[in-house]
């Protein structure tokens, strides 16, 4: 018997190779664009070339007559569809929510806004016809910068949002109180920080296929989504005004998401409505990369001013943060929650700071919508607080590691309330992770080497950057995240169903779903251990609203902590029922039944056991069940956790900076993370690797840039630099383990940790290399030219 089939072996904690991989390495995955349906036609969009304009005319006459073209529609043709919903009411957002329509009507607010759709027999013909549609715009003036957008006289995007302000929000103490603490501080530092706009860039772009069944009136939507159940709800109840039960949503294999595939997009309802207009012919839309960069959501884009008060020995006594968050041309699905709940309430990081005030102004501009991107608010918060630590180190002369150590929340402080409205941090022990990271990297030796190079006036300077982070994961508790005014007016629980079929095979359905995270493997490991059935006998099913219980989806590092716990609890219910039935089968009292590795026996008689398979058969054939027991082993759990989870750790980056050219070489990258207990360490490490790469890319390479006309200058992969293999270092990982008390498995979540930690670690490293030259901050991406200028290059 293979080990993996042996139910007595504990699989949780083991690096099981992924069961997803055999089909993916053989080219047998089924991603959206791989789906071909009988009679399927192709949609292509005419997109606005104006960043802010009134549509004067649309001439589709030529296009309608072109080969293969079936129809051309404009916004008015879908006037009966509501604008897309905005789900979050955070930050006091009330009556100024402006969400996009499936096709623009009247005005456009960003380059790329869809204004007309062409349907053709194939994608080449559709592209030809798109070029033949002529649209005229009256220019309404463009603003792309979040601060400029709020100034008097700036172009106004939406009538109901004066000065383009979506929300003004704050948390922490009264400003006057924090000002007093700042005034009393021994050391004061101010800094302007830009957290630049990023483009998520899942390698698979987005798309949808809609099919309407004229016979039943049912719709089916295949879409690249991280949250198919939520999409079904939003598309039916909010956009189309049809019963929720008339739509089935399927996420096929999804080629990466990183947040940008959480949201409700124009193409979803549009493809369904088009299929109905075409009497049920399925309609496919699959964006190309340029379209993806224009209109799939972006991330970050904060402009922040911080004021810091500290003692001379590096204790932070006051922190005032004022942030302008650019939300883009419209309000994306959960956009307002990112710079408020998930950013403002996390700026304390892993430190005890007695006086904090955060003010956030979220703003419309003529740019792509900004919403959650891997980390979603927490990377922005970590960037602020981890830069703050280094600024304090610079101002006080205390070593950056020591500044962190002196301000850490201590193990005995948990659960810890930071006082700025976040739920209490569940558990943590920050110093061992810092110590271990410093030990691995050889911190003292590196500082000595750094000093020696400075002494010698070497061309290659050494920089060491630290980032001690904490993040909020497993975002769920409905009574917190759902509370109107704070959250999105809806819960974030998860659900799971576990069935043991007559033959003993187990089917688990879950409302969470993977787009690279390996749920099918990790969840099967969990079920194998908890139910005592062979791993190979367990199927994890997901991603289809038909056949899976409602779930809010996969984001916020919540699948294991929330969705996994729902599975865990369903398995426990199955086990309890199986024990009852086993007692009946063994003619014993339930209290005398021992459950061990999928076998039930009467205490003292392990040889006369009933296996879970025996019990499942008996439960299914059902002719001999005790009392009122219903047939079948089939249990469902809707799990709403009591708290979030708070993973943490310390990352250290070592860089070499060439003084002559400003070129930066990544020398070492050490990450010590604590994500609680771990189900599959191989998968967790993979998540951390990928997260680090994305975060370091923000520090050094990536940045979305618009010109004054609202055109995306970094509109292709030729201009927007996501890292290649040669642009990232080898990551050296370790973990400490502080189990979460929030859930029975003690897991915390690992999908975003790397991204949150690595951006400040890398930025701090480069700035650290230049500290002796008077440099205390550089805006990201820190390109060679910025380094060169910071140390005097180009000065005339």
């Amino acid at each position, binding site marked *: 018997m*293979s*080990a993996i089939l*042996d139910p007595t072996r504990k699989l949780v904690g*083991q*690096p099981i*190779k*992924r069961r997803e*991989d*055999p089909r*993916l*390495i*053989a*080219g*047998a*995955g089924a*991603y959206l*664009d791989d789906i*071909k349906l009988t*009679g*399927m036609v192709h949609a292509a969009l005419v997109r606005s070339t104006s960043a802010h304009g009134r549509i004067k005319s649309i001439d589709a006459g030529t296009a309608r007559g072109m*080969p*293969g073209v079936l129809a051309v529609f404009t916004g008015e043709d879908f006037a009966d569809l509501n604008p897309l919903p905005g789900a979050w009411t955070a930050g006091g957002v009330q009556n100024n929510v402006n969400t996009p329509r499936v096709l623009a009507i009247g005005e456009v607010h960003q380059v790329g806004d869809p204004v007309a759709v062409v349907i053709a027999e*194939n*994608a*080449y013909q559709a592209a030809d016809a798109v070029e033949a549609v002529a649209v005229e715009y009256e220019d309404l003036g463009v603003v792309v910068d979040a601060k400029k957008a709020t100034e008097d006289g700036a172009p106004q995007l939406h009538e109901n949002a004066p000065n383009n302000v979506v929300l003004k929000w704050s948390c922490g103490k009264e400003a006057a109180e924090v000002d007093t603490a700042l005034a009393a501080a021994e050391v004061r530092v101010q800094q302007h920080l830009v957290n630049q706009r990023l483009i998520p*860039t*899942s*390698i*698979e772009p987005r798309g949808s296929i809609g099919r309407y069944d004229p016979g039943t009136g049912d719709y089916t939507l295949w879409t690249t989504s991280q949250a198919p159940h939520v999409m079904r709800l939003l598309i039916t109840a909010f956009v189309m005004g049809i019963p929720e039960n008339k739509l089935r949503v399927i996420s096929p*294999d*999804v*080629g*990466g*998401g990183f947040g940008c595939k959480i949201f409700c997009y124009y193409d979803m309802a549009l493809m369904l409505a088009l299929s109905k207009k075409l009497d049920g012919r399925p309609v*496919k839309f699959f964006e*190309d*990369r340029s379209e993806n960069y224009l209109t799939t959501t972006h991330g970050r884009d904060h402009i922040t001013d911080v004021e810091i008060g500290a003692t001379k020995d590096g204790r932070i006594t006051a922190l005032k943060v004022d942030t302008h968050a650019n939300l883009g041309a419209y309000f994306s699905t959960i956009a307002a929650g990112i710079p408020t709940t998930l950013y403002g309430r996390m700026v304390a990081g892993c430190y005890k700071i007695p006086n904090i005030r955060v003010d956030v102004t979220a703003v419309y501009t003529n740019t792509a919508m900004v919403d959650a991107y891997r980390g979603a608010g927490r990377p922005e918060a970590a960037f602020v607080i981890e830069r703050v630590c280094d600024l304090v180190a610079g101002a006080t002369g205390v070593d950056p590691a020591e500044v962190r150590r002196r301000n850490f929340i201590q193990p005995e402080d948990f659960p810890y309330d930071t006082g700025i409205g976040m739920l209490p941090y569940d558990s943590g022990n920050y110093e061992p992770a810092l110590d271990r990271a410093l030990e691995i990297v050889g911190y003292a030796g590196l500082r000595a080497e750094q000093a020696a190079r400075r002494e010698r006036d070497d061309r290659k300077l050494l920089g060491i950057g630290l980032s001690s982070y904490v993040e909020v994961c497993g975002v769920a508790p409905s009574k917190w995240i759902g509370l109107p005014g704070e959250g999105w007016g809806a819960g974030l629980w998860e659900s799971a169903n576990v069935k043991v079929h007559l033959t003993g095979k187990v089917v688990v359905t879950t409302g969470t779903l993977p*787009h*690279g995270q*390996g749920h099918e493997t990790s969840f099967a490991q969990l079920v194998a251990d908890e139910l005592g059935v062979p791993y190979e006998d367990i199927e994890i099913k997901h991603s289809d609203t038909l056949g899976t219980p409602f779930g809010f989806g996969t984001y916020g590092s919540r699948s294991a902590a929330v969705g996994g716990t729902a599975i865990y609890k369903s398995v426990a219910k199955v086990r309890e029922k199986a024990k009852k039935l086993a007692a009946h089968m063994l003619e014993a009292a339930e209290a005398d039944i021992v459950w061990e590795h999928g076998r039930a026996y009467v205490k003292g008689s392990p040889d006369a056991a009933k296996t879970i398979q025996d019990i499942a058969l008996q439960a299914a054939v059902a002719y001999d069940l005790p009392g009122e027991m219903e047939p079948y082993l089939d249990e469902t759990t809707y799990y709403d956790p009591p708290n979030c989870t708070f993973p943490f750790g310390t990352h250290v980056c070592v860089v070499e900076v060439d003084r002559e050219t400003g070129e930066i070489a990544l020398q070492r990258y050490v990450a010590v993370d604590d994500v609680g207990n771990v189900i599959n360490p*191989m*998968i967790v*490490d*993979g998540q951390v*690797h*990928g997260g*680090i*790469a994305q975060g370091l890319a923000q520090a050094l390479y990536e940045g979305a840039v618009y010109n004054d006309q609202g055109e995306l200058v970094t509109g*292709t*992969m*030729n201009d927007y630099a996501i890292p*290649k*293999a*040669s642009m*990232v270092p*080898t*990551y*050296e*990982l*370790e973990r400490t383990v502080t189990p979460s008390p929030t859930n029975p498995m003690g897991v915390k979540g690992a999908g975003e940790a790397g991204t949150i930690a690595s951006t400040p670690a890398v930025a701090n490293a480069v700035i650290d290399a230049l500290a002796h030259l008077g440099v205390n901050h550089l805006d990201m991406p820190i390109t060679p030219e910025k380094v060169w200028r910071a140390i005097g290059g180009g000065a005339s």
Partner: protein
Amino acid sequence: MADTMTAPATMAIQVTVNGSNRGGNVEPRTLLVHYLRDHLNLTGTHVGCDTSQCGACVVHLDGESVKSCTVLAVQANGSEITTIEGLAKDGDYHPVQQGFWEMHGLQCGYCTPGMIMASVSLLQRNPNPTEDEIRHGLEGNLCRCTGYQNIVKAVQYAAGQIGRDAGAADAPLPHDAHRPIHHDGTTPHDPASVDDWEDELAGESDES
């Protein structure tokens, strides 16, 4: 109707794809990737960009890696093409495919077919690449999930495996190709040790 087939002004082409003779009429503008995906229904080859950057579409054309989004189907006339679907032989994965599985070299899997095809060519040109040579040798392929570390290890695994299959006595064992990522060398999740772990447990089970 397939995605990109069109009636007018087509040209006949003949190609050998994964060992089978295939032919048909295509518009000259049809990109090879669309011919493979939409005419031949070989959808393992993906499209991830429109500027020839991402490499999700890499296939072998007459034995060499090309971006099939940057070759016209008519240019491939008379050629031999291998796609990801044709890489395994007699049900056995190519060592590079095996390496990606063993070393967790993929997450979402979208870049993976192109990454694997490019890696096969990399090892054909350079059977014993250094880590740096692997990283530079994969510059035509973008992955957004893995941070590349396990892709590098997958290629190292395959290099060792291919070397051993070729009878090179000094070829590193796949096991050795795995560079521990934990500082103290006790890589608790070292995927090479997955096998050890499974073997070990399988052995124990047999005994019991």
